[in-house]
């Protein structure tokens, strides 16, 4: 979860705001682009660089960001005056016909430059911010399909491996894990699924979650993960 939140070097002083934190280009609806907004809430000009990377995620949730030419961003470099907003346009430019959703990261990084005449000669510490937002290019009719592939529990922790067999990402919001063994039912709600709640499984990806839990789910149980988003 922390990865999709803005990386703030100082928690209380927002020099600028970047929104939304997640955006989907619905290619099936004939759309090719989307937009983000930078809002300079501070009192001086700021220099911001915008880049887009292709996003890959392993089973542990670690992300790898790769160079991509699928998405163009405009403008890639911008100076924003105080209390001004600037629209950032992103465009899916690849000619590849997608059958499954592709994931990207849009990175808005404030650069350590003094581009404001008022503060140019001032000494002091400059606070810099970096926002990392999610961007998806989604083909028509894309749907997620998250299944529990395996589970092991030992009374201390529950290890779940989930797979998104669908072609669209899925946020695990308000999940409920239901299991059935020898006619006995049990369930674990969002509050008990620490480490899983709110996480993301990209299209066609597997994720492994280690959840602290005293519950023992008998092996061979029928398990279903219900997501109420």
């Amino acid at each position, binding site marked *: 979860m922390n990865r999709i939140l803005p990386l703030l070097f100082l928690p*209380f002083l927002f020099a600028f705001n970047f929104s939304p934190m997640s955006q989907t280009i619905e290619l099936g609806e004939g759309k090719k*682009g*989307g*937009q983000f*907004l930078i809002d300079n809430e501070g009192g001086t*000009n700021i*220099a911001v*660089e915008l880049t887009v990377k292709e996003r890959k995620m392993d089973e542990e949730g670690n992300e790898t960001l790769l160079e991509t030419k699928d998405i*163009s961003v*405009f*403008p*890639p*470099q*911008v*100076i924003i005056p105080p*209390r*001004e*907003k*600037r*629209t950032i*346009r992103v*465009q899916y430019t690849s000619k590849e016909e997608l059958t499954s959703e592709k994931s990207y990261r849009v990175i808005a990084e404030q*650069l*350590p*430059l*003094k*581009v404001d005449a008022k503060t140019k000669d001032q*000494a002091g510490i400059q606070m810099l911010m970096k926002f990392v937002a999610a961007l998806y290019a989604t083909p028509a009719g894309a749907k997620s399909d998250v299944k529990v592939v395996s589970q092991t529990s030992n009374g201390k922790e529950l290890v779940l491996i989930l797979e998104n067999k669908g072609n669209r990402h899925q946020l695990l919001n308000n999940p409920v894990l239901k299991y059935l063994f020898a006619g006995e039912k049990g369930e674990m709600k969002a509050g008990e699924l620490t480490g899983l709640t709110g996480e993301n499984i990209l299209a066609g990806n597997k994720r492994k979650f280690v959840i602290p839990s005293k519950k023992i789910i008998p092996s061979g149980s029928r398990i279903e993960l219900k997501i109420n988003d």
Partner: protein
Amino acid sequence: MIKFLYIVFILLSFSSVFAQSMGTSYTAQIPLYDKDTNLGDVQVEINGDELISVDRDSLLNALRDTLKEDTIAAFERLPSQLTPSQISIPLRFSPQELKLETSIDLQLMARKKTDLGVDLEDEKRDALQPAPFGGAINYRLEQFWGDERLGGKYFSGQFGSFINMNSLVLESQMFYQTNTDAQWFRGDTRLVKDFEKQNIRTQVGDIYPQIQGFMVAKPLGGINIQRNFSLNPYRLPYPTGNQNFTLKSRSFVKYFVNSVMVKSEYLQAGNYSAKDIPLNNGLNTILIEATDDLGQKQFFVFKASSNINLLNEGESRFDVSYGTPFIDTSLKRDYINRDGNVFSGFYQYGFSSLFSSSVYLQNQQDFNLYGSEFIQAIPIGNITAGIARSNLEKLEGTAGSLGYQLITQGKRWFDSHTLSLRYENRSRDFKTQLTDVSTSIQNAYAANYTIPVSNILTFSLGGNYGDVRNNLLEDRYGYDVNLSFRVMNNHNIAFYVSRNRDEFKNWNDVAYVFLTISIPESNSYVSSLYDQQQKNIRVNVLRDNQNKLYHFRTQAIAEYGEERKNGELDLNYPTQIGDFGSRITASKIEQFDTAARGSARFNSAFVFAYDDSELGFGVSRPIPGSFVIFKPEDRLRDQKIGLKSTSPFTESQSGLFDEIVFSNLIAYQYRDIQLDPTFLEPGRSLQREKFTLYPTYRSAHLIKLSERGSVILTGKILKPDGTPIALQVGSVGDVTFFTNRDGQIFIEGVEAGTHELKLEGLEDKFIFSVNKEERGYKELGIIQLKENEL
């Protein structure tokens, strides 16, 4: 500043050493800190590490806003040079940081105000004012076809226009219908002038006076002057809550009114007075929750009663009108002055935030109605009282009323109760207007109580009783019951039954069931009403478009009764030049054949504005209040531009004359408008995308849009050794740019001409030209500098 202090510190350290060695002291201006807060500079005398004395006046200056008045007064009585023992707050000299430190006891601290009202400083500074001249003509044109029984074939037009000349507004409504004798019908026409600072609106023409107590609302052709609080919606003329609280350490403070958070802020330790806490009608629960840095919570809870008709202490409201009454009959407006002109006026004053009172008078010829109203908020609700007298020649009458209202609100389902009681007495000859006949009821009693029975069920019970003064008649009475079920958050079913018996023993019964189903995910709503008395069921299905352009809003209505069956389908399709719509209706009345009717309509506006020698005009969706025209400069006319304000969707875009009109500004409310450049060609952008507007009553803004230069320069800047010049600021004329970590540049806003590209700190420059015809991206390629100073 840090450098300066450091030098001072070094110098003082030396002087301190020197002074110590000499055994003498020195004076200095040093900052006084209360924990982390710098209170200001104080003049002190120091000897080595010891504080010898403090200058009283500079100490007072630093502490004046922090200490209570009596503590300040005590300081003022002390001598001009104070030793630490004479000072009632602890002072410690820190020779390492060269500052005075104190820790002021909370009991000595003054109370600081923290205002929960809206902070508009940014908006006020940035807001653009309306054009001195502008206006709009709204028109709704509709062609009908159908059976004669349903009106036959005819055309109708509704026109609503206004012209604003330096905030003097002339507004008028006209109606046109081909199947009537007169064809044209004039609606309201008036001249309006607002005086914002005084919150006063003046009107001449067709006016609708406001009323109080037993007054009767009468539309007039005449003049009206009123205090209108909507001229400054950010000011709070109605009672607000105030609460004192003390924070022992720096805390994150949240303010809740009836469980709804209204503000949050960080506050330092100290005594505070929360001002302007917005209150709702009824008994309000105000909770202030303070969480310190260690997560410890403090709660301050208090109750405050308020009434929507109460005014703040010292606030006043009035409405004074004079004119000829009018009525609209058969598409004709008649001004009726056979009974003379009408004067109508009231004045209300807030004596305290808990008590308001008003006096009023209405006069027509020999008829007078005058009276007074009182509202008192008490800890267990609100009490209202009124008294009035009327006279017409020798007939004099009196009326009085007494009311009580309790509304409790809370987060839990069982917290919300409403109780209202009202008693009214009218004497035999009391009249509310010249043509009134005496009421047969002398005493009227009414009570209503709404109680939550469970989290999904609300029960409401009401009753009324009126005793007649004529013994030949019977007393009136009645009751009503309402049961309302909330199902799965989005659905509601309500049962309502009422029975009322009049003074002639006639019973009037009403019974209905009302069902509403909301499907938020598809913006669809179904409502159904069953009227038991009429044996009629009506179903309404609406699929809303959330006001999205180029999306249908569809509504279907079916009505099934014993005598009448109806079906109706209505479609509305909003575009940036207006809303297209059509309606089909089929009706079957018992003794007639089925009849059908259809219509097609166009609902739009022509708008214009003149500002700063620039004329702008356009065609837009209807203008209910004020509007803005964005007029693109010539070179932007080939581009499509969108606009967003409060909606997540595009609310307007380039229209017939390439203008962008936003039709929904609300008078006297600051509004942020964000232009949406998504539709612009790659490589082109707007000079400015965000605007804050301040509209007045039926005003027009005209804003010229400019492109951010002719071209966007791209390229890469390298050092002589071929490595990138990373993170450097440079300029092309007035345009500032920077290089990224790879030395790449992206420079917007460069116009045609010959330019010099320079980096800060370097004499070396790159000269290039941009032709007049060039647009979009211009690739400068690799720029390798000759100097290697960076």
